[in-house]
């Protein structure tokens, strides 16, 4: 099997479950050692780490709430001490407060921005030092809510827009250090969390996607792996959309032609 990431070390924030887990497994399948950052769910993080080790790579879990700068520092102190280098940073951990825009108070705004946007800033600052001379890669996980409006998604959508803008700045300012920085924006991804919310509406969601099915965590992981490969060397500061074509379709038009009645 082709394992271009042998000898590399990846950090996946929020890597214990869902999209982060799929990314961790994909990077490991290409040979990368993986640090799984988690916050709330130690058991699932441990399970993921075990899966990674069974694939023959080194795996370590580190608990840290990426919304707290001191915890990010502690996490990177551990990485510095235990490894002293880092090749790939996946800024995936996310949270958010779902409220109509008029109900978003300062606390909800700060909470969402701190975890979804500021964490990339602080992680990238520490990661850049560990990536010195190693052709590092940074990929942040955004969402289509950065430019599409979804109900009660204001705080998260704005934080994702900030994440994408920061991705562009990092891409340019870290380019001289040989670090490639990009983002991925996906539509609703079929994770356990989402399955709970859309119960009974799976068919409608599938129908609204020209590609004929919903986006899976593995779809995201595949593109992350590409962005972490040398084949993607000339892609910088971009946000790659993974949505099966949903966001380019005009409203009220069916996927098979004609206008919906």
């Amino acid at each position: 099997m082709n394992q271009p990431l042998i000898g590399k070390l990846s950090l996946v924030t929020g890597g214990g479950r869902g999209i982060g887990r799929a990314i961790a497994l994909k990077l490991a399948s290409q040979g990368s050692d993986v640090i799984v950052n988690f916050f709330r769910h130690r058991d699932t993080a441990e399970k993921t780490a075990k899966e990674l080790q069974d694939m023959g790579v080194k795996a370590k879990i580190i608990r840290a709430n990426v919304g707290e700068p001191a915890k990010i520092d502690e996490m990177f102190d551990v990485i510095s001490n235990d490894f002293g280098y880092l090749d790939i940073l996946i800024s995936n951990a996310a949270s958010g407060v779902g409220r109509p825009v008029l109900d978003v108070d300062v606390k909800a705004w700060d909470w969402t921005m701190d975890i979804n946007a500021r964490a990339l800033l602080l992680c990238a600052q520490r990661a850049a030092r560990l990536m010195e001379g190693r052709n590092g890669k940074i990929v942040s996980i955004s969402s289509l809510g950065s430019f599409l409006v979804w109900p009660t998604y204001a705080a998260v959508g704005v934080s994702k827009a900030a994440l994408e803008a920061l991705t562009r700045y990092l891409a340019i300012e870290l380019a001289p250090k040989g670090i490639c920085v990009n983002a991925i924006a996906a539509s609703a991804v079929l994770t356990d969390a989402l399955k709970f919310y859309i119960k009974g509406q799976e068919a409608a969601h599938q129908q609204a996607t020209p590609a004929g099915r919903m986006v899976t965590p593995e779809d995201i992981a595949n593109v992350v792996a590409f962005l972490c490969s040398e084949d993607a060397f000339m892609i910088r500061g971009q946000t790659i959309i993974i949505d099966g074509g949903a966001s380019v379709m005009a409203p009220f038009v069916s996927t098979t032609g004609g206008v919906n009645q």
Partner: protein
Amino acid sequence: MSIEEQIKDIVSEIVRVDKNIIRREGTFKDINADSLDVVQILLRAEETFDIEIPDEDAEQFQNFGDFVDYVERHIAEKEKA
């Protein structure tokens, strides 16, 4: 400091209320804690006591006393294990 006192400190810091108004029979609503406050309280408790509090469990708490009892029980279980 007892676990109850430590939890009161967490709640009073996050909700910004005097800890003396936090009573076992009182609810988060009584001290005007919103949903984000509650999430932050649970996260801080998880971190402080190194336990997991699944959302399904947290939804069962009728009052502050239930929350304290839950944390005490899980710390005891962890120590036994």
